[in-house]
């Protein structure tokens, strides 16, 4: 039984609905990757599932209870979310940052108990930041910085971990560093991980479950080999791609070679321009008439 599911979820800013009628189930103890093009609504879905955005309609159920009507502090003991590209205040040290992960477990003025301190040190160790614990977060490399934020989420000690584009702005080695850490957390501790990723090959390589989203709707979902097909890529990303299989791991790899939209768009453009020039001709005609009439 999956712990986290959405029921008929509708999310939007103002009047415009970005997501309408979404039913999604997050497999417990697995890594789930949400993929989709920019503006497809995948981040919005992630934020709503992690209750930092409110849906217009429908609900997110955590263990059968609506997440948005529960005490947000209690929810924070069940699930953690790392927003996209978080920025630490200048001068905040790694240990201080990780310490804030204990917030939902603390009372009152937030003095750290011995247990809190032990958990913070454990999270720092898990993320390999022991020698950086007293450094300012803003002076670390991109990969270390991201690991520090993940350490904060770990200190929250939740079984479910949401990450919004955890590898964006990182170079390849740092991307791998972060993804391997997530894999380790999943395999060794059985944590449920839900992440938005841009790189499809990262999704196929590290996720057990993939959800391809277009305009707020699920186009395909399932294990990577099932989702990564030419048809899905064309539909979701508008690309033509070859699918190969990694000889090392057997996971599907996607090699884009052409924009699918390109052929469509040029055809449309031509059509549009023809219509436009006809309209312009007419407008000029009217103007000319007006001048002669005046």
């Amino acid at each position, binding site marked *: 039984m999956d712990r986290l599911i959405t029921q008929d979820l509708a999310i939007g800013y103002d009047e415009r609905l970005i997501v309408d009628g979404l039913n999604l189930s997050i497999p417990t103890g697995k890594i789930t990757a949400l993929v989709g093009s920019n503006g497809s609504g995948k981040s919005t879905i992630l934020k709503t599932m992690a209750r930092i955005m409110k849906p217009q309609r429908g609900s997110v159920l955590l263990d059968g209870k609506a997440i948005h009507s529960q005490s947000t502090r209690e929810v924070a003991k069940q699930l953690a979310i790392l927003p996209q590209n978080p920025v630490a205040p200048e*001068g905040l040290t790694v240990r201080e940052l990780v310490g804030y992960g204990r917030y939902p477990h603390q009372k009152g003025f937030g003095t750290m108990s011995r247990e809190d301190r032990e958990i913070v040190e454990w999270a720092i160790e898990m993320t390999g930041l022991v020698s950086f614990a007293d450094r300012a977060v803003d002076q670390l490399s991109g990969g270390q910085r991201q690991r520090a934020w993940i350490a904060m989420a770990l200190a929250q000690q939740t079984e479910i971990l949401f990450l919004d584009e955890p590898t964006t702005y990182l170079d390849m080695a740092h991307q791998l560093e972060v993804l391997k850490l997530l894999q380790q957390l999943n395999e060794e501790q059985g944590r449920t991980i839900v992440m938005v990723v841009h790189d499809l090959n990262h999704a196929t390589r590290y996720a057990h479950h993939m959800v391809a989203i277009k305009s707020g709707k699920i186009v395909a979902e399932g294990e990577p080999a099932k989702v990564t097909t030419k048809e899905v890529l064309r539909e979701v990303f508008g690309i033509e791609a070859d699918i190969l299989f990694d000889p090392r791991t057997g996971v599907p790899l996607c090699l884009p070679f052409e924009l699918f939209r390109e052929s469509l768009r040029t055809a449309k453009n031509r059509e549009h321009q023809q219509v436009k020039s006809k309209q312009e001709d007419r407008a000029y005609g009217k103007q000319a008439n007006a001048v002669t009439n005046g």
Partner: protein
Amino acid sequence: MNAFNTRHDAANARQMPVKGRPLAAILIITGGLAALALAMAAATAIGAADIRLSTVWDALFRFDPELSSHHVVRDLRVPRALGSALVGAGLAVAGAMMQGMTRNPLADSGLLGLNAGAGVMLAVCFAFFPQTPYILLMVYAFLGAAIGAGLVFGIGSMARGGMTPVRLTLAGAAVSALLTAVSEGIALMFRVGQDLAFWYAGGAAGITWPQISVLWPWIGVSLIAALLMSRSITLLSLGEEVAAGLGMRTRWVKTAGMLVVLILAGSSMSAVGSIAFIGLMVPHVARFLVGVDYRWIIPCSAVLGSLFMVLADIGARSVNPPYETPAGALISLAGVPFFLWLARRRGR
């Protein structure tokens, strides 16, 4: 924010291990309070007529109604020093909270439209209701500050993509310019320019006991509220989504925080006028000394703000005696170079 940093860069990054921040904070608070006591004693002694400290002591504890110097100390100098201290703490803490909540290092009551908003309301009071009692003036200044801040935040968040520090600062500048123009218009039409100019120049000269008695409960309660909220403010300074993810009720904290800011800034400004830069500078100094935790930044800002305001008030009286130099001008004189330095450091 270089995405192509190599692993070595980070190891070489110039770094100092951070240690003993709470210790530094406690030192600043105790040392600052001692300095504040000295400064307030000096403030009661220094002025158009210099009064010896022993006379000040006598005036306070062995009051003799026959002596005019005792009256000067009791009725003019002491309320003035107390008022300066209260207002300095209020403005500095308001600035610290705004900077934390908006994640905008340039946030300050002057830059976010609070001063200009309060100015308009006071201009209206001066023009139409010249007999308004002080407590009502304070309430109006508070309302004006709320209107100014509301306009700035409204305009700042109207744009697509929401509120960014730059947008907020731009909206603040635009709204402040507009509101200042409105109050100047009112001042010209109803000939209250002098009252308003005095208010805009800023200064503790007019503070009397009745004002203090109205002022201190508001500022005192707000300062305590600010302290109680300080941990939430630190969390907000990590980013709203991070704070929400950690289980904080961000909307509640932001509303309560803004209310505290409006009370602090509004009541302070109704007492001493439009004093910019204390709210901007003092929190930065505090942050530089004690780090990023608002549980320390807020009390340190309060102490340093009081100290700074009392010193500025002494300066206002002693630059060109027996005339008063506007304290607001003195503070701006120190504030502008600091502001430029800050902007330059940020831009690097």
